[in-house]
């Protein structure tokens, strides 16, 4: 009963906003359509772009999505493959920690997006610069979370392992890594979000295709309907990627955590 009421309120609230939006744009014309397109216009633009329309930015929605995904996933994978082991090594080996941590702390206050202009000058506006930006932004969260995760290992557990003559590597793989797994997975998720955001920013600034490029072009031509379509697609893909990652990690992580408990 209560659940039903909650659902009703939610539906009514979303509908109210849609009706209000339609009223402000199509019916009362309080906002011109180059500033705020009506929901119907957005639907039309969406249908047009999905069916492969190439105006006004020269490529269909699918091409833009493919370009964006290729860059984002490339940079993200590189960030994970380097970031997670680096974080683990920093937390486990004191020498690595002492050497890398100061450099890491020095560079961390600079938001990854601030690297975009430098990378564009160095690597051009193509694939390379954007992959590097996404690599930087996803690596940071991976390093921070893996580091914190390994550091959470209880000293007592390490002592027990040592008493049973485990080698340093055995302790790392059998004791510290299982402890750190939830944190590492959190890091993977956080960095996926920041990778996707960095991609959009890089594409807004300089590119020749991709979702960010699409909305930037639409702005220059005053096509707010295409902008809104682009924003919705960016949001949908971001959400889809993050739930895909949840699915994958629950498959990998779920069973083992159960066995532990």
């Amino acid at each position, binding site marked *: 009963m209560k659940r039903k*009421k*909650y*659902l009703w*309120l*939610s539906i*009514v*609230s*979303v509908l109210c*906003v849609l009706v209000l939006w339609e009223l402000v744009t199509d019916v009362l014309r309080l906002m011109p359509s*180059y*500033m*705020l397109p009506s929901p119907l216009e957005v639907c039309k633009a969406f249908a047009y772009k999905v069916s492969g329309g190439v105006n006004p930015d020269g490529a269909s929605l699918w091409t833009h999505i493919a370009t964006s995904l290729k860059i984002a996933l490339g940079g993200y994978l590189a960030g994970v493959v380097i970031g997670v082991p680096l974080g683990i090594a920093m937390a486990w080996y004191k020498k690595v920690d*002492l*050497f*890398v*941590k*100061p*450099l890491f702390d*020095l*560079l961390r*206050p*600079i*938001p*990854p*997006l*601030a*690297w*975009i*202009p*430098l990378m*564009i*000058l*160095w690597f*051009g506006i193509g694939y390379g610069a954007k992959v590097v930006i996404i690599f930087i932004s996803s690596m940071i969260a991976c390093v921070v979370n893996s580091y914190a995760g390994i550091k959470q290992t209880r000293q007592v557990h390490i002592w027990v392992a040592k008493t049973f003559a485990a080698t340093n590597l055995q302790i790392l793989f059998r004791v510290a890594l299982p402890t750190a797994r939830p944190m590492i997975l959190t890091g993977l998720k956080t960095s996926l*979000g920041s990778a*996707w*955001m960095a991609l*959009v*920013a890089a594409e*807004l*600034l300089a590119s020749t295709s991709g979702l*960010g490029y699409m*909305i*930037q072009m*639409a*702005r220059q031509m*005053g096509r*707010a309907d295409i*902008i*809104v379509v*682009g*924003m*919705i697609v*960016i*949001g*949908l893909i*971001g*959400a889809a990627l*993050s739930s895909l990652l949840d699915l994958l990690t629950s498959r990998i992580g779920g069973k083992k955590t159960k066995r532990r408990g």
Partner: protein
Amino acid sequence: MQRIGKTVWKRLKANRQTLLWIVISFATLLIAWQVASMLSQGRVQIPAPLEVFEAFFRSMTVPIGKNTILEHAGISLWRVLLGFVVASVIGMAIGILMGVSPKAHAVINPLFEFVRPIPPIAWIPLSILWFGLGSSNKIFIIFLASFTYVTINSYEGARNVDPKLIGAARMLGASRRRVFTHVIFPSSVPYIFAGLQIALSVSWAAEVAAEIIYSQNGVGWIITMGMNNGNITQIMVGMIAIGVIGYLLSTLMRVVEGRLCRWNRQET
């Protein structure tokens, strides 16, 4: 005085290894940078570290564009402050409202969940159409970026109040309003602060991104201008400024949190 000197000395001695390693790693970085700058040629130009630092300090008195770097930093910080404060106030109000009343949660949460997956950066083109090219579009982006975090954390804070505390206060005859001001709000403060902390660093990143993409002043403008003119020294000067301000902002938040939430830390 002497005692303070002694404890500082003791600490230094204990941390001597750390200090030594900090020096080693910074020295390695500087040497690598210097070598890279001497080897660099063609498109990948790298200015020498000394050159960059010199340019950084010079820019405090000699303007880049129309303003000195301090003025640019002031402009950027002012935008962040405006967006952040407005977002914090509204975010706290909405978050706590959602936490206290399930009805409000039912109405607001679906809308919130629709908007949340869209990165604030993706709003920039629309924001430019709505607010023009000046400061207000950046303030809007900063607002969006920090609003989400403050709202979610305030909601979590208000929802996770120990029901025993509320029950006890009610039993002792506290009015609903008093329960809110004396129990619910104070116990959500640590959550809210965690949200504010993330929100501030995210707003700084959003501000920089918005300025890089389009602006006429501010620290982000410095690096975009450097990019357009192929002036890498200027880009690095801008990045140093951005990093320093980012660091100061996060330190500031930590200090404020340490003061305001001291009771919470002592308890645990």
